[in-house]
């Protein structure tokens, strides 16, 4: 997993240079691309951070880049840079799931706020993904019997009912429950139910 980076796509060399300088001075890593095509070519799934892209570019348009990312299931947050007055395009970009839009020329504070928000979104997304992966891994460690106990507990059944349902003794249910809680690294019944739901 790499550090969060602002991937800047703009056909104007001066804007690339100036914005990347400003963003790096504000303490964020940047990587610049002169066109949407070159970004798509070099994109790697382990990239973290956000995409800051111009809209009016020769060749692939910013909105087309956004559509291409959606199609490839790349969930990198997108911030679009618009020329002024281009409200219609900005609206379209937001509708297609852009995180935010910035109007040229951009104020540095606004720029950094927007970019940090986007990066935070990306981090949040990855945290959720990571958590979900972790839980899944822990659940995978349970035996089928332990799993059954977990599901019935989540349904809200008492130990005695579970024992009856599974045709085992309440004592054995207790054992399964304790072993399951240990494997899932949970201490309370509430946490158990949340995982099993």
């Amino acid at each position: 997993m790499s550090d969060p980076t602002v991937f800047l796509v703009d056909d104007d060399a001066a804007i690339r240079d100036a914005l990347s300088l400003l963003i790096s001075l504000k303490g964020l890593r940047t990587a610049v691309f002169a066109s949407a095509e070159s970004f798509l070519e070099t994109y790697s799934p382990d990239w973290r951070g956000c995409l800051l892209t111009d809209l009016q570019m020769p060749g692939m348009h910013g909105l087309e880049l956004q559509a291409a990312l959606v199609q490839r299931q790349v969930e990198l947050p997108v911030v679009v840079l618009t020329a002024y007055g281009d409200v219609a395009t900005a609206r379209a970009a937001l509708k297609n799931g852009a995180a935010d839009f910035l109007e040229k020329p951009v104020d540095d504070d606004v720029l950094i706020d927007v970019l940090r928000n986007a990066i935070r979104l990306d981090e949040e997304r990855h945290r959720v993904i990571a958590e979900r992966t972790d839980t899944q891994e822990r659940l995978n460690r349970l035996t089928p019997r332990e799993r059954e106990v977990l599901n019935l507990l989540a349904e809200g059944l008492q130990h005695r009912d579970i024992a009856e349902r599974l045709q085992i003794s309440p004592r054995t249910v207790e054992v399964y429950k304790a072993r399951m809680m240990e494997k899932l690294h949970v201490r309370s019944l509430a946490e158990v139910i949340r995982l099993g739901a």
Partner: protein
Amino acid sequence: MSQSIATVASERGFARQPRIDGRGLALAGAYLVLYVVLDWLSFIQPVLKLGITPWNPNTGLMLAFLLVYGPRWAPVTALGVLAAEVLIRGTPAGWLVLICASAAIACGYAALATLLRRWGVPKLIESTAGAARLVVAVAVTTLVVATSYVLLFMAAGALPVEAVGGSIARYWVGDFNGILTFTPLLLLVGRWRELRQVLRNRLGLIALQFAAVALTMWLIFGLAPNDELRLFYPLFLPVIWVTLQWGVPGAMLSTLAVQIGLVIAVQNQPGAPPLVDLQFLLLTLILTALLLGAVVTERANALERVAMREAEQRVLLATAPDAVLTVHPSGEIRSANPAAHGLFGPLASATGSRTLRTILPAIRLDRESGRATLEGRRCDGATFPAEIAWARLTAPTNDDYLVIVRDVSQRQRAENRLREREMALSRAMRFAVAGELASALAHELNQPITALVSYLQAAEILAAPLASQDQRLQGTLGKATHEAIRASEVLRRLRDFYRGGAVKRERLELNLFCATFTATFQERLRRAGAELLVDIPEALPRIEADATQLEIVLHNLLSNAIDAVSQQPPASRHIVLSGGHGAGGVTLRVEDSGPGIAADVAAKLFEPFVTSKVDGMGLGLAISRSLLRGQGGELSYEPSVASGGACFIVRIPLHPVPATDA
């Protein structure tokens, strides 16, 4: 009547070319028979039994034959003379003389026929000058022929020297009278049907006139058989009467009647004076009748022409769309055509006629002729712009002016409308150009300003550690950033100002709209030699759009199309403006047969400052697309399949959505 008879005779007769075929032979045979018979009938009082007689209608037949069928038939006429000589008179002077005489006669009259054909014979006898020329030509030719004939026979010893003078005179008067009484009549035979019609309609009069001629003849020869010469002159009266009535044909017929009567009288009355004496008297009668007939015919023709001209002018005045007035120099209106009454109201009333000043207050007839644009005044006092032209009539007894007045208010209104429309269009066009320029400029300048602002903000961060050395650095960078942002704001306002132009929506019928619009292009199309086909179905739904903006778009597209086809050869300069409609919108296509658009140019066709024209700004298509998008429409390009050139497609939505800010 006499004119038309003579004219048609000429058209029928002279147009025919001689042919030596079955018909030609039949014609020659008929002529020969007729000629010999006529010669035989008129073989009266000859000199020494030679062909020297005082009346030769056969010569008249010969000339008529040569005139109608052409001098190429001269050999046939020579044969005719020879045959007549041999059959009627034998060969008293030997074959050689006869052949020479026949050839001389045929040559002489063929020459005369050639000359008269060049002059145009039937026309000739319809004017006095022409009739005089005819008479002189005939007189000279017959004299030459008579002299040659007589001298030939004298040389052959068939004629004593002392008889030469009298023989020439006798022969000459015979041929002359024969031609003048007979030839013109024969030329009229082609119009036999017309003549019969005239005869039938005026039978009573003609019978009366014939009776008058016959009665006079009877008076002369019946009452005083041996004293005809003294009573000859009363013959002039019926002949002149007939001539005055019928012109040249009447003159010819009456003199022929007199001639025949004379011949019969002389033949049947033993004590009568020699025919040759009478023939000289008749000569005067024939000449008088012919010249008088020419005068009458000429006058009749002139009257007919005048009547025709007058009828034409009456129709012209009655149907003229312009007001036509004749005006006395004092300003009094002498006459006015129906259009004048329609334009000014009644021009004459019980209180007297209106003067020119009351209907055209500003007019000054200070020149012989002129033109002016003035104010006209109707009878109800309403005024209108009038274009007038006047000229003084040139008739010797009349110095009135002819004044023509045209109401040009319609035209002026139309011109004004057109001018206003053009001005509105050019205003809108200028505004659109400025808007597109502002937009393009703002976009292009905003890029460096964006970089500049970011650089300055970066510089502020970089300069932060130096703030302790000089406080002003931070402040200066801050101000620089502020100014750069302000510049950007100015551009934004400039752009918004031109973009803010409100779209005026009106209901448009494309059919009508395109017809009006393309009408303004006719002149340019004509100059470019291009052909525009407009194919807008009447069934197209009506749209709501800004007419001026749509006109700018179509104006740009059509101008481009004309420029494109102008590079093609004249035969393949076609432009098609067609319409159609599909889901939710109407489309207009402008296709041209020009060279089309190169693929690399086509890719960025609608960007500002892209052009393939030497003197183009490259804004037309950019503006057109912006304007259409402003109305919720679209402009696109594709190569034309049908014509091989360019095809631009204008889409206009049926239900306009709020303008997208493109």
